[in-house]
């Protein structure tokens, strides 16, 4: 319940930040049909970016500098194994035999021989990971992505992923732990570990982008589409926006 309270407060803060941004740029010069909420999204994006700079990134950097590589690998493997559990379910309801079998095999091997998921034995055995969540399942069932939405603290989403979010949260085994302290601790560790993995990639994006917001959005939407179509998306008319003068 306290988490929900914090969420509401964050949302309020974000709305304020969003309003401030709205005043700064009330109209979007070159609207993208996939992003009708751009003004609002930019506000939230700015807020998330500020939180990242002030808290998440420094903590992740310290974590990377303090802990030895083998610990970080173990932590990453542990959470990866939990992700595989949720992938088993989603691959199964998508009726993907091979992917379901692989994911199940990964979980069984890594949980036992891999000491509760700390060692990724399955990858060494060349059993491929097929990450899947309910948002992806909806996409493969034919549900369209809907508008792009940046959520406070959580980052880029499409409406479809937002709709799937409650179920995906349930599917994350960390959220099934009854003890609140352990649950929060593990969630924080997961976030810090993920951010630490993307520190260098983040720097590359930082250097590559003219406008970090558009860069992130366009990459995210392409990436999601690519996942739904299994790495083979049909050609789309990518000229939108460029010829509206």
């Amino acid at each position, binding site marked *: 319940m306290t988490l929900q309270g914090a969420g509401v407060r964050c949302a309020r803060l974000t709305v304020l930040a969003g309003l401030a941004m709205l005043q700064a740029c009330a109209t979007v010069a070159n609207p993208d049909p996939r992003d009708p909420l751009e003004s609002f999204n930019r506000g939230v994006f700015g807020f998330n970016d500020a939180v990242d700079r002030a808290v998440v990134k420094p903590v992740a950097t310290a974590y990377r500098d303090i802990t030895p590589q083998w610990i970080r690998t173990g932590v990453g493997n542990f959470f990866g194994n939990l992700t595989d559990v949720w992938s088993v379910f989603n691959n199964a309801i998508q009726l993907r035999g091979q992917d379901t079998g692989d994911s199940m095999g990964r979980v069984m091997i890594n949980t036992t021989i891999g000491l509760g998921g700390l060692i990724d034995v399955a990858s060494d055995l060349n059993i491929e*990971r097929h990450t899947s969540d309910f948002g992806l399942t909806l996409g493969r069932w034919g549900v369209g992505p809907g508008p792009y939405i940046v959520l406070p603290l959580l980052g880029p989403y499409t409406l479809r992923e937002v709709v799937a979010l409650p179920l995906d949260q349930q599917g994350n085994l960390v959220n099934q732990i009854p003890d609140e302290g352990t649950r929060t601790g593990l969630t924080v560790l997961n976030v810090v570990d993920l951010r630490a993995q993307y520190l260098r990639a983040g720097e590359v994006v930082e250097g590559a982008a003219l406008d970090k917001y558009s860069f992130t959005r*366009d990459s995210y939407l392409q*990436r999601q589409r*690519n996942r739904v179509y299994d790495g083979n998306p049909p050609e789309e008319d990518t*000229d939108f926006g*460029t010829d509206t003068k």
Partner: protein
Amino acid sequence: MDVLEYKALMKRQFLRTLGWTLLMAVGLSGAAMAEDEAPDVMIKRLSVDVLDTIKADKALRSGDMTKLVALVDERIMPSVNFQRMTASAVGPAWRQATPEQQKRLQDEFKILLVRTYAGALAQVSTQTVAMKPLRASPDDKEVLVRTEIRGVGDPIQLDYRLEKTPGLGTGWRIYNLNVLGVWLVETYKSQFAQEINAKGLDGLIVSLSDRNKANSKKG
């Protein structure tokens, strides 16, 4: 004894000469065949070459940007149609640009992308490249070559679009690149359109060159 030793020496000399001749023959035929290199073979050769060079060089492995940029410039860029890449990222406005503007756009965009690519290469440690089957017919003018970078963690999808350029280089040039499902040119399209709509082509050139200046300050 002396005669035997002499014979052994001659034999070694002969073998060595034979070896060199064979090597040169292989090298020459390799050069002759380069004209007809298949697109996936070319990508494989470039990838293996770059990955192996990085693994073998301590300065490159530790992320020496100047050396990494030089590596990309020397090994990859000759096989890239950079004008086409810039033109499609800029979109319809490209045709309205003066030759001078086109040149500046191309130069600045090139600096930005080479540096970005070099930054990504700085993270190479034990990775290897795996080729996915090529689905193309011999008379295709444009093909999609799909690869996967395998190393620590999940494999990274890395695809290339190539165009046939008969009589130019190895016969194929890259004009778009896809990392994890994200096409490079498409990712720049709306950013460029935004700048052009707000500040015109010259505004875009200024933004690009500002970005590059900021990047080079970071070292």
